């Protein structure tokens, strides 16, 4: 197939499918039903290190986790979740919550939507156990 046909076809196709999924409401980030769901989401990534304590964010999109090894974050990856330890994290206050910069090529930056109270409290909880 000539490139002059393939290229516009691919660009339009990709954009079209992305927009369509968005219009169909398939862009909502994952919600953690309760602390048990947050715990399960953590254990899905780190099965050997179960949380001792779980703090859900007010909108239940993220959770702060404390384990025997250290503290960590569970957050949405689209409709699913992933998790990371916070060792080496740089935490910055933003207008909508916190930004966590990690020395991890596969998870360099996490934006957490938190209310004022959480944005004040979470960094101390993160450091206390890190």
């Amino acid at each position, binding site marked *: 197939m000539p490139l002059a046909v393939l290229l516009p076809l691919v660009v339009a*196709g*990709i954009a079209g*499918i992305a927009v369509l999924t968005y219009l169909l409401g398939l862009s909502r980030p994952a919600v953690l039903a309760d602390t048990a769901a947050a715990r399960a989401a953590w254990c899905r990534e780190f099965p050997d290190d179960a949380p001792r304590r779980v703090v859900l964010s007010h909108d239940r999109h993220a959770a702060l986790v404390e384990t025997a090894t250290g503290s960590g974050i569970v*957050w949405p*990856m*689209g*409709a*699913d979740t992933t998790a990371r330890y916070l060792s080496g994290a740089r935490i910055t206050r933003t207008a909508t919550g916190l930004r966590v910069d990690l020395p991890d*090529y596969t998870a360099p930056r996490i934006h957490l939507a938190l209310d004022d109270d959480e944005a004040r409290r979470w960094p101390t909880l993160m450091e206390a156990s890190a």
Partner: protein
Amino acid sequence: MTDQLSYPDVVTWAVPFFMAAILAELFWIVIKGRGGRYETRDALTSLVMGAGNVGSGLLLGFIAYGFFMALWQITPLDLGTAWWVVLLCFVLDDLRYYWVHRFGHRIRWVWASHVNHHSSQHYNLTTALRQTWTGTFTFMMLVRAPLILLGFHPAMVLFCGGLNLIYQFWIHTEAIGKMPRWFEAVMNTPSHHRVHHGRNARYLDANYAGVFIVWDKMFGTFVPELEAERPDYGLVRNLGTFNPVRVAFHEWVGIFRDVIQPGLTWRERLMYCLAPPGWSHDGSRDTSEAIKRKHLSRNPQDAGTPGFPAPPDGPVQN
């Protein structure tokens, strides 16, 4: 004489079909409310990875092609272009695919390229297009050398490889449960390949097949999809980014960071490149064997069931 042989570039011609099938699957899921899941950024990343794969083929394809043509100059054998030669080529190239794919999961250097195909937590037709950008650097074109030396023309081999990839497109779906028994017995199917994408301990390192599932049965890597255990898709440690560049290169970066650590022996540096994914010099990470072992220590009743080794000495006697 057959130096000028040319076959259609089947993968690019299949692009409109891929898009139509994705739309059909998406509407099926939305209308029926079952049969899989779509998410915007996940699908977008998969599609961009697919486009990048085609792009990297256009940019770097000449390396493999040059290598194949050099072999073609050397070999005294020419099997010609009869239909049965093409058919035989397709079957043998599928065997080639099985081994390249198996190396792709068992040698970290090759996994660094293949990992991105497994990096989605979804399993739908867009996942099929989430393909590597760095395949050329794995040197897996070497595995095709015997085919060309045996007298299969490089263009025929690449044509069969393209058909193989197109076959694998439709099996990336949850909209199809199981195919008829005879088909499941011989062919790779959505059910078999869902297992391959599973991050469950049971499903790790299973079902490497491209088109014919018989290779896994022959070489002992077949694991059936169990009714009682749905595959959980993605990586053992899921990515925290949708950025296609990070998806494409993260394991190469991981290898680089591991290899340049101070204080390692040269053997350890080599092992970080060539050992199975999860190998580490200090045992701080888990390979698939370790993950299976840990699962069995938590769930001893699973020993000997599909995907898990049998208990070492059978039932314990006292």
